[in-house]
């Protein structure tokens, strides 16, 4: 292997590593706030990519039907209580379960997204995937919010299987690839840097900075961190655990959907590809003990590099090598401390 190939592999590794880092951050966030090991994180990736691909092919993505169905169930479940509460809360509730879904339906069914420019299609795809996070939290995890970590994990696995099954129904078994955001490429020395790689890196960095600012500078961001740090303390301040959970899941869906849209031009995405991608983010998150954001991001970057280089040396074993990484890490972590302790 010469330097040129090494640089090429490193570029590949950093690009996929950036995506894994985003997913790792989402996993850490969701776990810290809700104690859910969020296995279906990768499904948001697949849904984001495949929703965008549907627009390009002039099809109506099943994501829309899922969004409408979940909104309808929430309307039935929470509608009566919201009505009794009345006032601004009721209007906000209606905006979420009636107005927003109606707007989305109008955009998809009447707006002819097929003819839209790529960036607008991408935003619409993201707008369809994002609400799935809080909706799924409300219907699947909120009712069992006080259950043990193991129980929540089992629920997460069940949800993962359900979403993969729905993905097959919605998008079919064929894979999709979308056109790149940018056709440009630059030669830097002997290395060719593609515009799409820069898009991925730039967007990931932008998202990470935005998340950082949200958590460090805004009251709601601090409230979410407070919930992760001390649930009882946060509740005593009037920070609702449910509210924090919904926000964490909203981020998970936005990050997942955005990751899918970003990598769809680089990798062919199938309805079940999300799981493997999410799992690599998960390896990164585990390196960070599901607790440290910077370590999780660094771990995910490492996974990306490892994957890229092992695809060169032993491409048949690339997944094996990546997931074998988790074993020494787990051993090291469990030997070092018991950080991810079960809360009582």
């Amino acid at each position, binding site marked *: 292997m010469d330097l040129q190939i090494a640089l090429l592999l490193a570029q590949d590794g950093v690009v996929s590593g950036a995506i894994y880092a985003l997913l790792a951050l989402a996993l850490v966030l969701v776990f810290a706030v809700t104690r859910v090991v969020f296995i279906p994180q990768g499904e948001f990736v697949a849904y984001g990519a495949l929703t965008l691909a549907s627009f390009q092919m002039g099809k109506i993505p099943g994501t829309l039907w899922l969004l409408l169905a979940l909104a309808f169930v929430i309307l039935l479940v929470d509608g009566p209580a919201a009505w009794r509460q009345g006032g601004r809360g009721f209007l906000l509730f209606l905006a979420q379960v009636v107005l927003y879904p109606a707007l989305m339906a109008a955009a998809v069914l009447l707006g002819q997204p097929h003819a839209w420019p790529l960036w607008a299609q991408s935003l619409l795809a993201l707008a369809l995937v994002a609400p799935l996070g809080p909706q799924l939290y409300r219907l699947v995890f909120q009712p069992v919010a006080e259950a043990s970590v193991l129980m929540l994990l089992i629920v997460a696995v069940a949800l993962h299987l359900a979403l993969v099954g729905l993905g097959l129904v919605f998008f079919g078994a064929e894979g999709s690839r979308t056109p790149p955001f940018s056709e440009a490429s630059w030669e830097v020395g002997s290395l060719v840097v593609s515009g799409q790689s820069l898009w991925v890196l730039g967007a990931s960095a932008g998202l990470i900075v935005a998340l950082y600012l949200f958590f460090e500078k805004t*009251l709601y961001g*601090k*409230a979410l*961190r*407070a919930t992760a*740090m*001390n649930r*009882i*303390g*946060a*509740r*005593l*301040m*009037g*920070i*609702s655990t449910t509210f924090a959970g919904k926000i964490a899941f909203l981020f998970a869906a936005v990050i997942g959907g955005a990751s899918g849209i970003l990598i769809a031009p680089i990798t062919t995405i199938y309805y079940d590809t999300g799981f493997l991608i999410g799992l690599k983010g998960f390896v990164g998150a585990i390196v960070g003990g599901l607790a440290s954001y910077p370590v999780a991001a660094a771990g995910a970057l490492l996974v990306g590099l490892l994957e890229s280089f092992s695809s060169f040396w032993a491409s048949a074993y690339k997944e094996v090598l990546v997931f074998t990484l988790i074993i020494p890490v787990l051993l090291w972590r469990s030997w070092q401390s018991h950080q991810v302790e079960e809360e009582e």
Partner: protein
Amino acid sequence: MSEALLEVSDLSVAYGQIEAVHHVSLRVLPGQIVTVIGPNGAGKTTLLSAIIGLLPCKGGMVRYAGEAYARVTLEKMVAAGMVLVPEKRELFAEMSVLDNLLLGAFMRRRLGFRDERQTLATVFALFPRLKERAQQRAGTLSGGERQMLAIGRALMARPRLLMLDEPSLGLAPLIVREIFRILADLAAEGVAILLVEQNARAALQLADYGYVLETGEIALSGRADELSEDARVAESYLGQAAGCPVA
């Protein structure tokens, strides 16, 4: 007699099958300091937790600020100005002192108030130590400073009813005296205070009214000055407190 801000009637609380608080009734008037004293394990923490909605009530009723609740929800109570300084403080250890305080005003912000900077100034005036350490992580504070932060954070919500669970626990007598002086000032401004203490002597000196909780039941109640003179209280709580000071 003026209207009670908090009226608990016939409240029972259980952990699973085991009932820890049985048929407790008590009242707190606006601007009044009421104390609940009693030995370790009597159910004081359980009582406060149930009043604010951290634990479900098994039976009984809580009336607060003119509304009756058969099922108390924590969020509603906090929105209505009830604040608890818990026994374990429950601070946000990895955050700065300032952020801890600002989060104390979270509910007020949600309700549309934008006065947290003014409130912060009054809290800093009460606890100058917190101002000095505003940028420090809460986890690095000493025990006394932590209790000040827990109380300061509670005050950021501008409570109508401030409930404190053993604020003197583990603190030096000097700091306890300072904290109790601040509580007296708050009550003079109209804040109602429900103070749970094992340090019965100090609590009865400060309070207007007192209840003695023993194995989950109110064993005795009365004006604080009368309770201090009660033979049973003197023997069980004050004598003990003198023999082995809680602080």
